[in-house]
């Protein structure tokens, strides 16, 4: 296991999480 796995997980969670959150905000705005 790569010792930097936490950095990889953090980057993917933040990027995909932010995109999903933005999509959710668009739905909340009526898209």
């Amino acid at each position, binding site marked *: 296991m790569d010792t930097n796995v936490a*950095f990889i997980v*953090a*980057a993917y969670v933040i990027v995909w999480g932010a995109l999903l959150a933005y999509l959710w905000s668009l739905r909340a*705005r009526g898209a």
Partner: protein
Amino acid sequence: MAKNPPSGASVLQPRFPGVPWVRIRGWLGILAAAAALLATWMALVWAPTDAVQGDVYRIMYVHVPSAWLAYLAFVVVFLASIGWLWSRRPIFDAIAVSSAEIGVLFTGLALVAGSIWAKPTWGVWWTWEPRLITTAVMFVMYIGYLLLRGLSTDFERRATRAAILGAVLVLDVPIVHLSVLWANSLHQLPTVLRAGGSPALDASMLLTLLVSVAAFTLIYAYLMAARVAIEVARRERLWTPT
């Protein structure tokens, strides 16, 4: 009721009546989600481990597409701004504001993912070097673009001011991309979009990167379709005569 409404709500209607936009958007969303799953699997499982950096280089597969989509989004802002200045069709202003908002999101994600990648490879979360500074400046400038739009309720004036700014700010896109060549930079030089040579990347890594870029492009297209639809609906509510 806002002052100076555009010349009738009809200008905001889609120009292709009969095209099932909602269905097309639905399929685009499914395609984008499938591409995102494929890209994530390729990035985290299929692509080989880098000989120098180990697995942490896999952050590249979200960092680079985010940066490229920020470039694309701001070029779309530029084209839509020219479209508004040329034709005064409100749909161009809707496209410009939508693309600017999504571009700011992708720029922020490129900065955050880059910072997370920098810590284990450079030893710092942030350093004042050309690529990072120009990207941060681009991020702040387009936030300024979005804030400028809130200063006026006059549609024409707001759209024209924003379009002039949107047409000028795009100059920062090539500056960001070429900043690593113009000054001594800690950031990696262009690997794929580089002059005078083929991409300096292993074939399977390059394929994974291209699939990731394609997935992010589909996501951008889907988000744009949704965001423009909101803008059009909002303007029709504001300017439909009562």
